[in-house]
């Protein structure tokens, strides 16, 4: 830069006015214009996230190590007096067969958690992968995939599950497959929409002109920007699947007894709702707390991962 060293500010301004208009270094000095490093504010997830995530982890650990916990077996009939209220021996009380409700909730969480996380994981990989490819490539593949997604979405999910349950006795594996299938279409649509909006951005074009392959562009340019919405949406999906299992169980079409699940425990307890409400209440609280925690985690994650793109 050809900046003359002026003797006074007045001389400097005159100098600037007389030289070519494009030769002016008084503005846009890179060093001075760079904003100071961002504080940690807005970068942390906050206590709510950690409490919610901690609760989910605790519930998951309890489910995994349920056998090691000092609890009566979930299907041990008469481990306590039937229909006994909460006591020190049975913290959450017992049901009509004298089974320990806390034990049944912890073992029952296995069904809800495995179903929720496994089906959404499968749905995310398939739906997300298809959404990325369809959104980026466009063309006939996109048209066909999108049309199929519309058809699946137009089908009432509960009706589909009821129909399938009517044909064959539900097992955990079948339920995972069914919920995974149902989650593909919505996840596909979310990822496809996000991909389309990112793929038109100039930095994707720049990567293309730098010689990046399509797969590299998908994985390194587009996926990182799509991931936040995918993660938060998938987390909500886990909550939805847990609710879905509860609905099916309430209709008697989920995992059959005596294997406990939160859904069938609530369903079982409804006959005693007036006299012994804890039978339904405690599994309902367990389900509610996990769903709330999942929603909070999804919410904070999407907030945190959403990198600002605009100017400061």
């Amino acid at each position, binding site marked *: 830069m050809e900046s003359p060293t002026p003797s006074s500010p007045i001389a400097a301004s005159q100098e600037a006015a007389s030289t070519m208009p*494009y030769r002016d270094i008084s*503005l846009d000095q*890179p060093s001075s214009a*760079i904003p100071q490093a961002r504080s940690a504010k807005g970068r942390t997830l906050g206590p709510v996230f950690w409490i919610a995530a901690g609760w989910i982890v605790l519930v998951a650990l309890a489910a995994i190590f349920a056998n090691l916990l000092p609890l009566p077996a979930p299907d041990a009939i008469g481990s306590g007096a039937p229909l006994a209220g909460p006591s020190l021996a049975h913290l959450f009380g017992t049901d009509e067969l004298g089974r320990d409700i806390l034990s049944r909730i912890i073992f029952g969480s296995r069904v809800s958690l495995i179903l929720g996380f496994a089906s959404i994981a499968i749905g995310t990989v398939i739906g997300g992968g298809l959404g990325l490819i369809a959104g980026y490539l466009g063309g006939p593949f996109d048209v066909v995939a999108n049309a199929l997604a519309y058809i699946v979405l137009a089908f009432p999910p509960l009706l589909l599950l009821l129909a399938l349950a009517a044909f064959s006795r539900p097992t955990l594996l079948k339920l995972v497959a069914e919920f995974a299938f149902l989650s593909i279409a919505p996840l596909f649509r979310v990822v496809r929409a996000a991909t389309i909006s990112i793929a038109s951005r100039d930095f994707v074009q*720049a990567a293309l002109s730098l*010689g990046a392959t399509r797969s590299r562009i998908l994985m390194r340019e587009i996926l990182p920007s799509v991931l936040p919405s995918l993660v938060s949406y998938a987390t909500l999906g886990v909550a939805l699947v847990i609710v879905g299992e509860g609905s099916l169980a309430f209709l008697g079409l989920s995992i059959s007894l005596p294997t406990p699940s939160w859904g069938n425990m609530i369903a079982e307890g409804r006959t005693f709702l007036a006299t012994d409400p804890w039978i339904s209440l405690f599994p309902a609280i367990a389900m509610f707390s996990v769903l709330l925690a999942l929603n909070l985690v999804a919410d904070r994650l999407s907030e945190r991962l959403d990198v600002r793109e605009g100017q400061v």
Partner: protein
Amino acid sequence: MSTHNHSSAENTHRILSQSVESGGSDGMNTNTGATPALEVEGLRVEIAQGFRRIVHAVSGVDLSIAAQETLGLVGESGCGKTTTGKAIAGLVKPTGGRIAISGTDLTGLKGRSLRKVRNTVQMIFQDPISSLNPRRKILGTIMEPMAIWSIGSPEERRARALELLEQVGLEPHLVANRLPYQLSGGQCQRVSVARALTLSPDLLICDEPVSALDVSVQAHILNLLNDVQRTYRLSMLFISHDLSVVRNVSDRVAVMYMGRICEVAPVADLFDHPMHPYTLELLHSIPVHARTTSSAGLPAGTTDVSAPALEPIMATARNRPSTATSVGNVDAEPPDTQQPFRGWLQAGIQGPIDSTLPDAATISSALSPPSGCRYHPRCPCATSICTSEQPPMLELSPGHTVACHHPLIQPVS
């Protein structure tokens, strides 16, 4: 360092070791031979848009850029400037025509060889924020091109990236670990320039590189482009609608209207003696204040068409044989609808700005471009031949080609 053997085997070495060669550009590099940096022949881009709707974005464009030359490409919004640039960069698939970069024909190339040739053309985009991956730190953004082609070790890439940041006027240690949103628009554009330079391209396509920037920053980016052009011996295609910017950066200027080139001329020639009526309309669309003062008193950088240049133009319009009903004697006040910018042709340089704006009815659509010369619905000089025949590109004075049936010819002085 300036005299590397530029063989393909040493390409890696060249990219990693190329640094500022201040004052070393003596114009004697290997590119200055007969092969132009870019040759475009009959480029067509037609984009299907729904059922039987085809956008004729680019309809037969010929361009050529010599080594280390800057060609300005101007035209109004939607005339196909950007599409032309993207087609040359390989980002839009042309439906016809030929593109050759430094003598290498792009048509028919596929896969890795196409990607390899694309490297020699890099593009700077209009939106500085959107040009950078919002989730990647600046250093990573500049290292990415080298990572794509596995050039050097991570440490070498890092060193080269830092060096590039310095070359584009950024302080490496301050910006390297930042995300794009933490930088200003001008700084982001500098990063874009650095990224484009990483692979040592031959041709840089600048698509409105300063339009989104603060006016005070525009000059710095233009200076930077000018500097890197000399340092890296680049050819440039400079796309812009801002005539004053184009005037300052270009060696030659091509004027584009509705997917076709209407006029190509050396920059001074084009601004002093426009031959295509559309070029004249463009030049007149620049608002110039202080009409009462002479053009000599205008500040440098302000584009102005000098009054004497316009006299013969008016004469041409008046003396044209009235073969069509639409154009006869301008002084005889023909119907307004036929003469959208009759006002300033008549009033010459004193014409009010408003009268230069075309009526909405005369703005044609790229979905169904007009027959013949595409400018004829708006042209004050149009005759019947303009509606039926596409005017050929003719070289009317040295280096000055015009596609017009009734060019505004200057008397030889």
